[in-house]
């Protein structure tokens, strides 16, 4: 699988999971926020590092 295909598949799966997280009633809202926070952190940390490099 190429990098682009891999990326596309990952984005699709993440969006599927975001949808699940949004809709499910099995997970408390506080826990959902914590999941979102950690996910966002994973995105933010590397970008901040890149910003420093740039």
């Amino acid at each position: 699988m190429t990098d682009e295909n891999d990326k596309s598949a990952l984005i699709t799966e993440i969006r599927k999971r975001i949808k699940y997280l949004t809709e499910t009633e099995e997970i408390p809202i506080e826990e959902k926020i914590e999941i979102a926070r950690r996910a966002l952190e994973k995105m933010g940390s590397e970008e901040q590092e890149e910003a420093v490099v740039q």
Partner: protein
Amino acid sequence: MSTVQHTSSPEQEALELIGTLAAAPEKTAVLQEFLTERLKALDTNLKDASVDQLRKVLNEFPSGEPDSPVAASTGAVEACSVKGVELDPRIQVVLDKSRSPIIQAVLDKYFTSVDASHSDRIGWELRDGAVAKDAVREIDALNRELHRETLLPTDYAASLAEGYETAAGARTGEVVLGVSGSQKMDHWDMKSHLAEQNMSLPTRYDSIVSLNLSLLLRGEHPLEGGKKELRDARGVLAAYGTGLYAYDHVDSRSWARLRLSALGSPN
């Protein structure tokens, strides 16, 4: 590349907001809005993220899929009888071929092979109309009669790992939770265990964590036992589906959810 904007750390923001709104009647609605904003920000940035970043992000989310790849050894099936628990039908059972032919015959009566193509272990699922509870009672009775002492051969972990993969039908990047009933296998990370033997996982995924059924049923999470290999496996487990994502939080609620989602309910 777009960037995620933070005025303070996301953790601080979330904690402050939750704390401030704890007693407010409109708490849920406000928190929901906060969550929605977070998820929107995340979604907007996905296309600019690297594959590595995306993998990390994915691992934070529960899959929500009902067919989570959980595999149990026949030892776990047997342990169910002792604990009075009916195995969740979604759990695939891995048969250890070195087992007694008598026990194999009983297993064959209740379970059917689902795939033996690339493993010396066989994934099994319940035959139509069969009840796992009846199977484990019969096996347990046999075990008592035979006074069997299960020994783990040196290649046990590798073979079981392969069997788990086969039985659970794991996909690339997924982690299989192996549920064990063995009293000897307290709980351990197979990857680490194999590394000690200069072996590697014969599987596509990163790791298999085997947990002792008894610990789970008692509601005790193995971290209390201080097992380093399992602490190291936290991130791996977080990649798993419903019930395990919360492992990263390491609290009793996580394990309660794991028990309910993976093992069914006590009779």
